[in-house]
C-alpha cells in the first residue's frame, strides 16, 4: 500500500498505569468507529499488564533507553547557555537560581524511543501526567514522545485524566493540543493569562467519564448508547440531548414543560423514557406522549423513546429535565449529570448537579446554558479527524 492510499494514522500511547476496563472498552469502540483513521496503540514493551489488558487493541511495543551523562563542566555550561536569557524582572538570572541545585548541575540525562516505523502518522495521543499523580517512568516516556513529536513535526495531543485546572501548566504548554474532560480545565487552560498556545478541546461527558478515575458502572454500561442514539437520530454536534423521565401521572406538567422550551427546540433532541407499566387504556406510554404533545414535538430537532429501565442510556444526554424529583433525576444527580426539576409545589434549591425550580424562565435558562456548553464540546472522533486533517498548527516554542 503506498502512502497515498493508506489511511492516516494516529499513534495512541498507553502505559501500565493508564488503563482501566472502561478505557479498553472505549478504545475498542473508538477503533471500530473511526473507520477512516488507523489508530495504532503503542505500549512500552516492559508494561506487561498493559499488554494483557489491551490485547484486543493489537498494541505495538516500543522500547525506551535512558542514558545519563556524567557530571561535567561542558554539560553545566550547555545547560546554562540554553536558559541564559531568562531572568526575573529585577534582573536575577534563572540559571543562577536553579542550576547549581534543583536542575542537577552538570548532569544530563537523555531518553530515546526505539520502535519499528509506523507509516503515515499524523499525530500522537498521550495521557497528560500531573504533578500530584503520576509515576516517574511513565513521565519519562511521556516526555520522550513529546520530544520525538517535536523533532518529527508531528501534532501531539494530551488528554486529561487527573484535573488540569491546577496551578501547574508546564505539561499542557508543551503539547499542541489538550483534550480536557471538563469545563473547568478547559477554562483554566484557555485563560489568556496562562499563555497556553495549543488547541484546547473539551470532551462530552460520556467520553470524559471514560478518562476519569472512579467512574461508576452506569458509564460502562452506557458506553455505546450515545453513539447509537446519535447515529440513529442523526444528531448533529451542536444539538443537545435532554433526557425526559416522562410519567403519565404528570402528563399535563410534561406537556407544559415541552411547550415552555419549544422555542429552543431546533437545538434539542428529546430522549423520553417510557415504561410498560405506564400503558393506559389502549395507549402505550410512547403514544400518550406523542398524542398529547404532537404539535409541540415538531418544534424539536428530533426525539427518541427509551426503556425506563435502561437507565444507562441517560449517559448520552446533556441533562435531565423532569417535572418531579424521582428515580432518573436521582441517578443523574449521583452520576454527575445536571438535572433540572420544575415543580411549582416544592421550594427551589440548587445542590450539586440538581436544580429544582418553580418557574419556566429558570428552566429555559438551564436549557440555554446546556446549549451553550455543547458548543464548546468536541468528541474524540472529531478531534482525531481534526488532527489528521492538520486543522490545528503545532505550537511554536
Amino acid at each position, binding site marked *: 500500500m503506498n502512502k497515498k492510499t493508506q489511511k492516516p494514522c494516529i499513534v495512541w500511547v498507553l502505559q501500565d498505569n493508564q488503563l482501566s476496563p472502561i478505557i479498553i472498552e472505549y478504545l475498542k469502540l473508538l477503533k471500530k468507529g473511526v473507520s477512516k483513521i488507523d489508530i495504532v496503540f503503542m505500549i512500552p514493551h516492559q508494561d506487561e499488564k498493559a499488554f494483557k489488558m489491551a490485547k484486543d487493541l493489537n498494541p505495538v511495543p516500543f522500547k525506551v533507553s535512558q542514558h545519563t551523562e556524567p557530571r561535567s563542566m561542558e554539560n*553545566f555550561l550547555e545547560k546554562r547557555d*540554553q536558559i541564559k536569557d*531568562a531572568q526575573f524582572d529585577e534582573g536575577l538570572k534563572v540559571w543562577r537560581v536553579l542550576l547549581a541545585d534543583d536542575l542537577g548541575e552538570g548532569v544530563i540525562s537523555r531518553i530515546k524511543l526505539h520502535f519499528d516505523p509506523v507509516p503515515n502518522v499524523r499525530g500522537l495521543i498521550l495521557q497528560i501526567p500531573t504533578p500530584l499523580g503520576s509515576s516517574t517512568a511513565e513521565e519519562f516516556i511521556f516526555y520522550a514522545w513529546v520530544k520525538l513529536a517535536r523533532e518529527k513535526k508531528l501534532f501531539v495531543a494530551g488528554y486529561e485524566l487527573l484535573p488540569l485546572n491546577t496551578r501547574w501548566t508546564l505539561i499542557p504548554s508543551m503539547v499542541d493540543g489538550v483534550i480536557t474532560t471538563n469545563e473547568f480545565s478547559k477554562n483554566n487552560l484557555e485563560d489568556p493569562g496562562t499563555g497556553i498556545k495549543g488547541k484546547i478541546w473539551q470532551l462530552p461527558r460520556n467520553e470524559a467519564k471514560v478518562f476519569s478515575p472512579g467512574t461508576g458502572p452506569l458509564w460502562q454500561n452506557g458506553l455505546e448508547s450515545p453513539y447509537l442514539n446519535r447515529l440513529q437520530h442523526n444528531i448533529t454536534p451542536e444539538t443537545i440531548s435532554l433526557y425526559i423521565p416522562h410519567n403519565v401521572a404528570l402528563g399535563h406538567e410534561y406537556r407544559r414543560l415541552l411547550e415552555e422550551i419549544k422555542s429552543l427546540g431546533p437545538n434539542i433532541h428529546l430522549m423520553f423514557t417510557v415504561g410498560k407499566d405506564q400503558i393506559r387504556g389502549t395507549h402505550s406510554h410512547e403514544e400518550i406522549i406523542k398524542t398529547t404533545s404532537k404539535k409541540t414535538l415538531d418544534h424539536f430537532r428530533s426525539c427518541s423513546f427509551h426503556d425506563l429501565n435502561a437507565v444507562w442510556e441517560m449517559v448520552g444526554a446533556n441533562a435531565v429535565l423532569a417535572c418531579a424529583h424521582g428515580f432518573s433525576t436521582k441517578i443523574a444527580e449521583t452520576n454527575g449529570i445536571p438535572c433540572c426539576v420544575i415543580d411549582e409545589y416544592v421550594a427551589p434549591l440548587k445542590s450539586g448537579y440538581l436544580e429544582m425550580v418553580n418557574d419556566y424562565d429558570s428552566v429555559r435558562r438551564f436549557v440555554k446554558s446546556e446549549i451553550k456548553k455543547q458548543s464548546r464540546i468536541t468528541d474524540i472522533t472529531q478531534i482525531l479527524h481534526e488532527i489528521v486533517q492538520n486543522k490545528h498548527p503545532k505550537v511554536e516554542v
Partner: protein
Amino acid sequence: MKNSFWKGKTVTAYIALKHHTRFIIPIMEKLADLGAKTNYLVGQAERSQEITAIETGLDYNHIFDYIGPSDREQVFNNYKMLRQTFGKALLEDSLFSLQVPTVMDKTLFALAQEYTGFHNYFKQVKPDICLALHELNRWGKIFSFHSKEKGIPIITLQEGLLTSASAQLDYVHTGHVQYSTLCLVWGQGSKEKLCHFESPEDRLIPVGNTHLSCEINTLQENNTREKKRKDYKTSDKFVMVVFFSVMLPQAIEEFIELVNLPGQNDSVELFFKFHPGTVRPQIDAWMERFPKAAIQKIHSIHGEEDTYSLMAMSDLCVLVEASTVGLEALAIGCALVLLNLNADVVYKDTSLVDKGAALGLTVSELCEAVQSKTSFETRIDQSGVQSYLDHELINTKNSIDRVCDLMNEVVRASQESSPEPLVSNRTPGKDWSIVIPVSSNPELFLVTLEHIALASEDENFEVILISPSSVPDGIKIILDSLGGDICILKNKTDLPMAIMMNKAAQEANGEVILFLDEYIAPTPGWLTALRNGKEDFGKETVFGAKVSNRFENIIHAGMVVNSNAQPVSAYLHLDKKFPQSCKTRAFQMVDFFIGMDRQLFLNTGGFHPKAGRYKYLDLSLRTEDILSRKDAVVYLHDIHLMQLTQPASRQSQDDAVFFYGKWHGRLWENEDRLYANDGISNLQLSAARMTRAQNMANRI
C-alpha cells in the same frame, strides 16, 4: 552580654536543612545575647525546611507567609516566564530532562512564589543584616539577591562540602559569592578554592568553622571523651571509628579483615559510622554481606550517636574516602587514617595524606598497625597536621566572636552617613594641584616626577607629595633636591593615606585637584584632555583616565561590575588602543586616578578614611549620590596614564568590609551590558585577550 550596638538591630537568617542551622544558630544566639532581634526564615521544599526549624526549636516564618492574594498576578507572571523558558528548553533539547517535567513544574511554581515571598519579606521586615549558609540553592540565591536589592548586607558562610565529594563539582561554585556582601570561610584553603572559581577574593574572609568551634568547646566543657568511653565500656580499649560516605563501597572483600578485627583482638572496639544520607536498608544490606559473628562485635552507628562525640571518644578516626569529617576530626585532635582502597570511591582526594595530616593505609596495613599497637599519634607528623589545620581552618575556638565582630563592622558601614564636607581657606592660585604619594622606590619615584614635569609643561600647576614619616635614603635625597611648586606633606603620625590626601586637598591651591596612585605617571596632553573634559561635562564632574601597564595593557578604562558584583576595569588586559576603550563616557566608578574640582572634592568630604584601596571607588559612588547624577563620573579616554610597576599588594580586609558593607547594594553586574552596548561579544573579547597574550609572549 547586651551591648548598645546590637540593641534594636534585626538579624534575619535563612535556614534550610539541619546542617545549615548548626553553622548559623551559634552566630544568631550570640547576636541575640548581644541584644539583636533574630528572625529565622524557611522556604518551600518537599524535604521540609520547616521541620528543621521545628526540631531545632526556632521561632520561624515560612516565606509563603509573606504572599497574599494581591501577589497572585506577580506569582503567575513569574511562573509563566519560568514555564515558557523550560517548556521551550525541554522541547528543543534534553538538557533539563534529568527530572521528570512535573517535578520541574512544581519547582518552578514554588520558585515563582518564593521570589515574590522573599521580595515582600524585605519590604515588610527590613532587617539590618542577613545571614545564610550559602547562595548556591534557589532559596539562598533569592534571599541574597533581594537582600542586596534592598541594600541590606547579607553574610554567607562556606558551603560545608567544599572538602567533600561535591568539591569535584568545583564549577558549581562559580556563583558561591555573588550577591553576598561577604562570604566567611573556614580557612585559606577554602578561600583559594573559591577564588579559583571566580569568587571575588576581597569578599572572602577566613573566620574558622562556627559550628566546629562551638562543638570543640562543648566537648571540652562536658568532658565528653571520658563520659562516652565509660558509657560504651571502652575506657581501657583502643577505639577506632570508621567513617563511611554516602555511597558504601560495593567490593567488600577489602573490609573483611577489618570487620574481623574486634573478634581477633579484645582490646579493639570498632565503630562504623554511616553517613546520614545513606538509608538504613542500604546499610543493613551491606552489613549482612559480612559474617554474622563478626558484625555483632561492631558498633554500627547511623544517627544513634553524635559524630563529634564519636570523634572525641576515639583513639583513631578512619576515613573510607576524603570528606569534611577528616578536617573536623583533626580539629578535635584525633589521629586520622585515610584508607587507600582498591575499590572505587566517589571522591578520591589524597591531599590529607599528601600534606601529612593523615596516614594513608590499606585496610591490611591498618589492621596490622592496630594489632601491633602502633602509636598513630607518633606515626603522624604533627607539624603536617598543624599546617593542614592552619591552612584549612583559621580558627578553631573563637570563630563565632570573629563573625559577630565582622557583622558589626558591616552593619556600621552600611548605615554610615557621608562624611562632613572638608573646610579649606585656600583661594585657588593655580589651575592644577597634583597629589601623589611618595613611593619607596627612588628610581620610579623620580620617573614619576619627571613624567609629571614633562607632561605638564606650560601649565600652571603645583605638586603635593605625601611622604611617610620615614623614607629610604634614596627618596630623601630626591625630596631634598626638589624645588619649584612642590609641597611635601609629611605623615608624621602614620595617618591613613585617605586622611593625608584630604589634608593635601585642604592645603592645595589648585582649582582642580588631581590624585594619582603610587607609580602612576601621566603622559603629555593629560591636562589639556582634562581641561576639555571639564568644558564638555562641567565642573561638577569626577574624571578618570585610561591607565595602562608597562606592557601597554589596559589596567583601567572605567570601572564596571562583573557577574560576582566585583568592580573591575572595563577591557582589562587588552591593548591600550583597543577601540572600544577609546570612548569617553560616564561610568559608575573610576580607579587609580581622580581629577575633580577642588571645591567639589571638599564638599564631598573627600576620601573616606576606612575606604583604603577602594578610596576612588567610594568617592565616585558618593559623588554620584551627592550630585544625584548618573553621569557624575566620567572616564576620559584621552588621558593616558602609565603604571610604572605594580605596587606591592597591601591587602587589608577592613577596607573590603567597609566598602562592600557600604556599597554592596549599589554594585550590580553591568560588565556584559557595556560590552553588548559596544557591540562586542564575549567570544570576541576572549579572542582579543588571547591575541594580546600571544603578542606579549612573542615580545618576551
